[in-house]
């Protein structure tokens, strides 16, 4: 694949901002949506299906001049439990950690139960997050008490 004649598009290193690394390749676009990057005014770089020593393939997001609260970033643990968060200031890594599954999530996932009040009236959704015996992430609706599993998650 080495071809010195081919023009290479370089993504510059961040001066200040956040790198979200080790996102499963097929979850990159969902992660962008969950973090509401669609409406971001900051420069955002992202790539997917990139080679990863650890996971074979991965996605990565870089955003300039933005940092996240743990609560906010932990949302993406629901779709990207392996993601690592790297905070950069003056080109230097100042912190690095793996996201953690939040215990509760609000307002950005739809309840899977069509008869749930949250699907009929302007009620913000709210779920308790738990991991079942087989390691599958499940969300229990605070209102209808029904469970939405990972594969049925729809993001609002």
């Amino acid at each position, binding site marked *: 694949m080495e071809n010195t004649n081919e023009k290479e598009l370089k993504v510059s290193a961040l001066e200040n901002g956040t790198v979200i690394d080790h996102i499963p390749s097929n979850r990159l676009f969902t992660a962008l949506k969950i973090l509401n990057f669609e409406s971001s005014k900051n420069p955002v770089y992202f790539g997917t299906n990139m080679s990863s020593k650890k996971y074979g393939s991965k996605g990565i997001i870089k955003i300039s001049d933005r940092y996240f609260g743990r609560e906010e970033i932990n949302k993406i643990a629901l779709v990207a439990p392996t993601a690592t968060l790297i905070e950069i200031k003056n080109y230097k890594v100042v912190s690095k950690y793996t996201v953690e599954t939040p215990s509760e999530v609000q307002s950005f996932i739809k*309840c899977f*139960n069509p*008869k*749930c*009040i*949250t699907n*009929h*009236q*302007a*009620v913000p959704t709210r779920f308790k997050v738990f991991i079942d015996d087989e390691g599958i992430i499940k969300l229990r*609706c*605070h*209102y*209808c*008490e*029904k*469970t939405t599993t990972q594969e049925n998650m729809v993001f609002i």
Partner: protein
Amino acid sequence: MKNRSLISINDYSKEEYIKVLDIAEDFEKNPRQKILENHVIATLFFEPSTRTRLSFESAISQLGGKIIGFTDASSSSVSKGETLMDTIKTVANYSDLIVMRHPLDGSARWASEVAGIPIINAGDGANQHPTQCLLDMYSIRKTQGTLENIHIAFVGDLKYGRTVHSLVIAMSEFNATFHLVSPEELKLPSVIKKYIKDAGLKYHQYTDIENIMDKVDVLYMTRIQRERFADPMEYERVKNSYILKNNMLENSKPNMRILHPLPRVNEIEEAVDQNPKAYYFQQAKNGVFVREALIASILGLK
């Protein structure tokens, strides 16, 4: 329990339920006490449920309380497009406590978050109906003398039966042994079985009702609805095998009692009503005492 809503069977502790049952016992001895004379209670039935509504209204009336409300959504501003939140906030200005029934799952929880006054859930869609569970517990304790170590059979639709789910969860706190009798397609969901397992208790599953008759203290019957079956032939095949008849009760234990949340269609033959082991009409009556006790507790009057 003062000023606390009751939305789901998990909202109160075991001790709190027992306290409500104890108070209900006093009301059974003396059901007419004018302790609600200075109170207004709203009964908001966004979908009709005559039995539950009359039971609540009887309880409130026997305590001397005033009732405001509606009996179905078409006679309220809901038909003009008002949101549940607005209806609840408005009615909360007019009353001390709201009893509500609503067709959507989770509606009662939402109402309890916006009302500012306590809510009693009288059924939210397929989700919860905690006062039914309380009256079932009351009936078990009354007929068996205890809630502990009971062998209880659930018969019929264990998959969709909301009352079954709540009672299984509640009885898991009291060291019960569960005998689950249902057609294959209507077995108890695994999320409910998990409560039994987590409590370290045993359950046995059967498809034939005859297998459990000599084993159980409580026989909890439910209705099997045709619309639950994908295959109508399958419904025809199973429907008659879950009809309770007097001759099936011959080997049952002397203390055994038959419960049913009602309404009954044909799953208990009318001849069984005369059997001393039939308890379902008394069970419905107990609902009034339990609701009196719950309302009095929430309003801080008992």
